[in-house]
């Protein structure tokens, strides 16, 4: 296949993701102004989580990558979770 097409091919996936990211950004920004009481934070964080997942899987190529790197990447969230869980053991029972 000719080069220019190949060059275009390269863009497709990342751009799709990028568009998705922008849409999510717009969404979270808009939703922030909708009164949901305590709902706002969870919503915005969920959206953030989705965005992070997109960047991680596609841009950082965890998707195509070997399991080893995926394992490494997973360690981060897991340990953060542990930290919050046990902090909660104190703060939510004080």
């Amino acid at each position, binding site marked *: 296949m000719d080069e220019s097409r190949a060059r275009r091919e390269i863009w497709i996936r990342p751009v799709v993701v990028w568009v998705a990211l922008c849409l999510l950004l717009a969404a979270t920004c808009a939703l922030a102004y909708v009164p949901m009481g305590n709902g706002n934070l969870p919503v915005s964080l969920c959206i953030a989580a989705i965005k992070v997942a997109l960047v991680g899987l596609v841009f950082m190529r965890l998707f195509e990558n070997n399991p080893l790197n995926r394992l490494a990447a997973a360690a981060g969230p897991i340990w953060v979770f542990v930290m919050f869980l*046990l902090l909660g053991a104190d703060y939510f029972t004080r």
Partner: protein
Amino acid sequence: MTDTAVNSAMPPDYLHDGHTLRSWLLSTDHKRIALLFVFSITVFFFIGAVAIGIIRLELLTPAGDLVSDDTYNKLFTIHGIVMVWFFLIPSIPATFGNFLLPLMIGAKDLAFPRINLLSWYLYIGGAAFTVATLIAGGVDTGWTFYTPYSTMFSNTAVLTAAMGVFVVGFSSVLTGVNFIATTHMLRAPGMTWFRLPLFVWSMYATSIVMVLATPVLAMTLLLIMAERWLDLPIFDASRGGDPLLFQHLFWFYSHPAVYIMILPGMGVVSEIIACFARRRLFGYSFMVYALVAIAVIGFFVWGHHMFVSGQSPYANMVFSFLSFMVAVPSAIKVFNWTATLYRGSITFEAPMLYAFGFLGLFTIGGLTGLFLATVPIDIHVTDTYFVVAHFHYIMVGGTVSAFFGGLHFWWPKITGKLYPESWARLAAILMFFGFNLTFFPQFVMGYLGMPRRYHAYPPEFQVYHVLSTSGAAVLGVAYILPLFYLIWSLRYGAAAGMNPWRAKGLEWQALSPPPRDNFLSPPVVGEPYDYHPQEGPDAEGDAA
């Protein structure tokens, strides 16, 4: 292959390729970097030692008469900071780990040699700050930097001290990254995960902790600096902050950190015991699982340092329970080491003596950890000398013994020379008795209510302190001895040959000292620790 095969055609050993200072300071050879670390941590060990030497002398009398209370506080603080971050944490990983990890898995070097060198420079950077702290008149917060004292009240060089620890933290993160990547990527053909020596496994487990825990400390120190320097309200209660948050963050690092300090010791001891008992390590796979389990569960127990801090009593329950759980894998290791001796063919060279010392002292230290994990008991003994004794039993009795054991065990490999055995045995025995004399009395006075970080104390405790100090003097001598005979052996020691202990493990298939690229021909990988035909005795062993 025997020594006679070592002819002039050989590449020079790592000590002799390049003699300029530059060839050392810019070397990316893991073996040379290991030596750089050996020198640096030795220096800091003696800084920390002198500090505590003075403290021990001060504590000879109940009245604080030798040094002022401010000086006293600065002394134990610098002792803690230096001993933990500038001696014990790098002690085994950055020296033996650096030197042996590639050798043991049959690699030329660590995965990222230049980053390895960077680790050393970061260490030196942090060290510089710490020395600056001393010059600036010291710091008096205790190694725990508790707020609000450290941020709002202390008027000593807290910033410089915190900065030093902050910087040295990145040194251990990078070391951790390097070790993990190396273990995954550079194992020689045939070196499967379950053929790795336990020392490598211990380095792997340690690295996990280094990578996951240290950054949290870095951030916590950053917050301390921000509050103290930029006066941003973060932990300051009078402005709505919560001092306990600091303690949580600090211990989230510092408890796992204690496993950074012990796991490597466990690795060293495993190697030594197998070799001098001429025996396969008992329950190899369990030993491996135990190492990893300790590293992971170690992250769940930090709250046991905060039983009286005002944290929720329910949290106390949770953390107490988890602390008991973390003890189990350690138990497994102790039992396996003991079982390894069974039907062995044991000899008692200095490394083995240190290993025995480790077994006994670590077990005592660990078991007293269980007392501390028991909330009602801890409420009474926390912040007393009982705690001080607990952690010295593990860190000094355990890890430092293991360090000296390893030093003697691999000395022939590192320097190519044999050390004088009888002197070494003497030092080992001195150390053991000096140690117990120093720290056992501290358990007693601790339970009787002697608070730690006390410059003056009620006279009824004097007897215990006098015992402790006399022990420290013995200990001091025992630490200084090796310095002399090891240096002596550099010049006058007999040539070691490749494998003076007839030990298994790839590092012994390299020349001593090894050349830049470690192995002349690819090493032959076999089962770990096969010191004897299936379950049988070690033939040569008994012949002796």
